[in-house]
């Protein structure tokens, strides 16, 4: 995306002045290129539906800082267009910022930009729906070997649309299908209830996280209410905490980003120490059903 086809390219002298520290020229060029940078941010953030407004602002700030740095460093007389010169650094800053906001594990944070790169390259090669193994292979060829579960952690957080026009020069509104998480039929994202953010918004942090635990155990993993009582009161079998953490990271990363600590079983047990709900099968079902009803009845 250029700064706009109808907009004239800035006079080269402005770039020279900006690189020499002229604040007026710097400000003018910043304003001129900002829509392009913002478009790049929007296109990447579009793929990350669970990023909050504050995080988006943080990423915009990162991108803005990188734009200023690029304007200060850019040498117009090298004959390279500013966009071509600045794009890798700005894109890198956006992706690094996003990875920080998503609270990924350290390994996934490192893998994050390479997963994005691999997906783009695969798309350009005509692989429109690559498997995690193909992405892993591509990353390995580029000298970035990462285990599959790390790649999966990244893929579970992103909504990656096909790059129909190459690079980030596409219109986010024009995207029709998702590459990952193409949840079908009843899972289409049109209903509010499907969104963990809405559970958090509707029930609040404390009640929402308890609801999330019960929902995952009951509907996600198929435990009966009396089994859930046992898990919550006895703490579960010896390796349960580890298994729970894996299950949350792999299966419900969106829930984890809404409810930090959800992957820590010891912490989860603490959430249920204060009544309600009291730990009996009927009480849990009653509590869960009431919270479900609350979500239905609260104005969203």
């Amino acid at each position: 995306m250029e700064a706009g086809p109808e907009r004239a390219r800035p006079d080269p002298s402005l770039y020279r002045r900006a690189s020499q520290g002229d604040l007026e020229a710097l400000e003018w060029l910043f304003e001129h290129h900002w829509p392009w940078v913002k478009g790049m941010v929007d296109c990447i953030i579009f793929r990350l539906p669970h990023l909050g407004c504050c995080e988006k602002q943080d990423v915009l700030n990162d991108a803005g800082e990188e734009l200023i740095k690029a304007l200060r460093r850019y040498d117009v007389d090298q004959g390279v267009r500013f966009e071509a010169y600045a794009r890798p650094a700005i894109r890198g800053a956006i992706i690094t910022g996003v990875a920080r906001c998503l609270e990924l594990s350290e390994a996934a944070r490192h893998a994050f930009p390479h997963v994005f790169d691999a997906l783009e390259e695969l798309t350009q090669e005509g692989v429109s729906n690559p498997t995690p193994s193909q992405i892993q292979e591509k990353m390995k060829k580029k000298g970035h070997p990462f285990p599959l579960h790390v790649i999966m952690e990244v893929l579970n957080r992103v909504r990656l649309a096909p790059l129909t026009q190459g690079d980030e020069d596409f219109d986010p509104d024009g995207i029709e299908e998702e590459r990952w998480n193409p949840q079908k039929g009843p899972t289409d994202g049109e209903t509010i209830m499907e969104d963990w953010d809405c559970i958090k918004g509707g029930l609040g942090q404390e009640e929402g996280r308890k609801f999330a635990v019960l929902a995952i155990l009951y509907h996600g993993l198929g435990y009966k209410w009396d089994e859930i009582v046992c898990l919550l009161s006895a703490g579960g079998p010896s390796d349960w905490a580890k298994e729970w953490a894996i299950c949350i990271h792999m299966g419900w990363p969106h829930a984890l980003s809404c409810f930090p600590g959800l992957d820590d079983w010891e912490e989860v047990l603490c959430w249920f120490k204060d009544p309600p709900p009291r730990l009996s099968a009927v009480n849990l079902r009653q509590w869960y059903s009431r919270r479900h009803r609350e979500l239905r009845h609260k104005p969203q």
Partner: protein
Amino acid sequence: MIVLPIAIFRESTGLSGRWQGLNSEGLKRIGIPVLVYGFEEEELKEWPDDLRGVQVLRFERLPESPVVVHCRAFDVFREEALRLGAQFGRMPWAILYLPQGEKSPPEIWSFVDAVVRAGDWEMLRRLLRCPRRFESAEWAEEIPINRLFVLSKPPTAEEILELPLPTELREHIAQCEACQEAFAEALEARRRMARMFCPSPASLNAYFQEAGKALWIRRHLEICPLCRSEAEELFFTLSLPAMTLRQIARDPEQPKFLREWAIRRLQELESGGIAHGGGT
């Protein structure tokens, strides 16, 4: 004005069956007996004739019908509900009565099943049309996911009679309009939310690539026929190496359906890759 401890009230009137079968004229004449908590006598006099307030002073056992709790008495009711929850394993069904202009107290939804604004008699009538309304809605949580998506919207009485619910309750829901309505609403809410808990296609893919090691996906596939069907489709389009397929087929920990898929896929490979016929 009747003022009774709940134990006496419960035994003397048999609320749960009393008003079923009455037509609207009958209800108007007799009035729906409504358990109320924390109301002033003067306030109850202003209620419509068909809603007959029955004061509850203390709960000696669980009431069989919902209690309408005035907002001013909510704190005391909360303590009572916690005590009953500990003693009887569940809290009473309750409706919070909220005077105009007042805000709900925080955390009400751990203790009540509905909120009604003062003067919204239609809503109160609707919620009290059957004392088992909330119980019926609650049991919608128990319907297995495989039944959830094959039921009509709303489910027919015949379908309800085949659901895995306590016999007496499903027979009641099948013949009670109010409970059917509540049950259908709760089912719809479950449908909207159900697939939040399903693994993404990417996770399923990784699950197969790793020869079915992720226990959480295995558990989920065993309870979710929708995911199982999607997983089956995916399984037969992936080019899993024969070694992985053998690993799955020989692993006694794997679910039966997955081992069968692996065996079928191996047979296909051995016979030169016949296209998958689908359907397990």
